[in-house]
């Protein structure tokens, strides 16, 4: 649930930015040259993708060491936090060039954590799903990505159809980004609830395998021990 919601949130923000690009261009860049403003808007969009491979590598490695659930919750919180803050950046007319600079910084932070979230969610579901339903449950991740796109396009259609261009430029475009904040808390809350349930079950059973990630952490060491014994013989 947390993995699916996190992915939905990631793609909802991704698509919202691109579907509202014409409005964002007016808000964050000088209005004299519309083409240059649009190009700059998409340049920020593209630049934020540069940090994705780095983010995926770092968060993936941290997930192996600190546990998939912790990293998933952290990435969801950073991702939704930075998306939420995008909704509060003042316009170009208020703070000048600081507005696109802040937008770029927050988009890069969002992208950095989102890359870890996507990979982490897939791996997390694959690791925790029962073997017989692994394929089905892992498909939640791409399904959530498509749902995020659809939700964003639906929202943009409703907003553009019902709101005036003036309102869209002042507050309308901010709404999808601000919505990401509570949704992120909800997604990381799902993770905490499942963790509490799991830990209460673990206290009754007291088995090593119920500890998240314990089984995966144990296997290589045990394999190492076995191979050392075989080597001594």
């Amino acid at each position, binding site marked *: 649930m947390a993995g699916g919601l996190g992915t939905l949130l990631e793609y909802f923000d*991704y*698509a919202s930015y*691109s*579907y509202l*690009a*014409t*409005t964002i261009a007016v808000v964050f860049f000088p209005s004299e040259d519309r083409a240059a403003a*649009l190009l700059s808007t*998409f340049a920020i*969009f593209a630049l934020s993708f540069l940090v994705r491979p780095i983010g995926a590598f770092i968060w993936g490695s941290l997930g192996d060491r600190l546990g998939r659930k912790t990293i998933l919750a952290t990435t969801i919180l950073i991702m939704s936090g930075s998306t939420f803050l995008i909704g509060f950046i003042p316009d170009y007319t208020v703070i000048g060039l600081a507005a696109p600079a802040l937008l770029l910084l927050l988009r890069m932070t969002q992208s950095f954590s989102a890359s870890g979230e996507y990979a982490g969610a897939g791996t997390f579901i694959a690791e925790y799903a029962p073997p017989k339903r692994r394929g089905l449950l892992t498909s939640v991740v791409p399904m959530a990505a*498509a749902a995020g*796109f*659809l939700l964003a*396009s*639906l929202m*943009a*259609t409703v907003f*553009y*159809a019902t709101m005036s261009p003036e309102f869209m430029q002042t507050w309308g475009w901010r709404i999808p980004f601000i919505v990401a904040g509570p949704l992120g808390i909800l997604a990381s809350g799902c993770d905490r609830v499942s963790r509490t349930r799991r830990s209460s079950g673990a206290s009754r059973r007291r088995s090593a395998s119920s500890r998240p990630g314990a089984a995966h952490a144990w296997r290589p060491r045990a394999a190492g021990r076995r191979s050392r014994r075989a080597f001594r013989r």
Partner: protein
Amino acid sequence: MAPTSRWAEVAKSLPSMIKTLLVMSLNAGAYYLLLSYIPTFLIEQAHMSEASSTLVVTIGLVA
């Protein structure tokens, strides 16, 4: 399996791995480019309204 033979197996399947990666990159690039740029293209080039352009994408996504 010894590490060297594992690497040899990877090296053997390297050309097909690269081909698969290229096809995947092309597919992902086209998919994301189309999905994210289409509304802007429709507004700027086809002079459609914002609402109609995003509605086209919504219908496309549902279909």
